[in-house]
């Protein structure tokens, strides 16, 4: 999110928006909003219905286990410090979300997909320059 946070002002200057569509259960969303400065709308697709509507699928049990463990490791310090809610509700409902494909999709004002980047890990967000170029190509 840090990379996109840096590029967000430039994206907004071009009249565009970022919607972060997550596998977070809706009941946890307000907790995050209170505890963190979320730069853009953080949407809760807890049952991954919208992920699947865009054709994003799970990558299998191994990916779910790996990503759940990574989430636990990174989330634990926040829980201990009281800065983050317990992971239990997320882990109870989240293994499927943790194995979903990642994607960055640009939708033009005409409602059509204009740019698409698929990845299997969170680390693979396209560089901000690529996103800006995709936006500029619309005009």
């Amino acid at each position: 999110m840090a990379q996109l946070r840096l590029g967000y002002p430039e994206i907004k200057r071009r009249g565009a928006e970022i919607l972060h569509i997550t596998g977070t259960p809706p009941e946890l969303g307000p907790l995050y909003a209170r505890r963190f400065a979320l730069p853009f709308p953080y949407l809760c697709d807890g049952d991954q219905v919208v992920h699947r509507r865009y054709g994003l699928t799970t990558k299998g049990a191994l990916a779910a286990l790996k990503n759940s463990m990574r989430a636990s490791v990174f989330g634990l310090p926040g829980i201990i410090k009281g800065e983050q809610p317990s992971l239990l509700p997320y882990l109870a409902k989240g293994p499927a979300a943790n194995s979903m494909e990642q994607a960055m999709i640009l939708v033009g004002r005409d409602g059509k997909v204009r740019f698409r980047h698929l990845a299997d890990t969170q680390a693979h967000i396209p560089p901000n320059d690529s996103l800006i170029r995709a936006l500029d190509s619309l005009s």
Partner: protein
Amino acid sequence: MSEVMTNAKPVEIGDPAPHFSLPSAQGGVVTLDQTIQNGPVFLWFSPGMV
């Protein structure tokens, strides 16, 4: 979310973007239709913050 439809393949460039309506952590409900009225929209799909 008015319907549950699953695409077997990821959307392609040029495809109509499937509509959606989702609760926002910051409050309220956000729809794609309303958001694109103001300009292009990046949809970032990820597991989210844990």
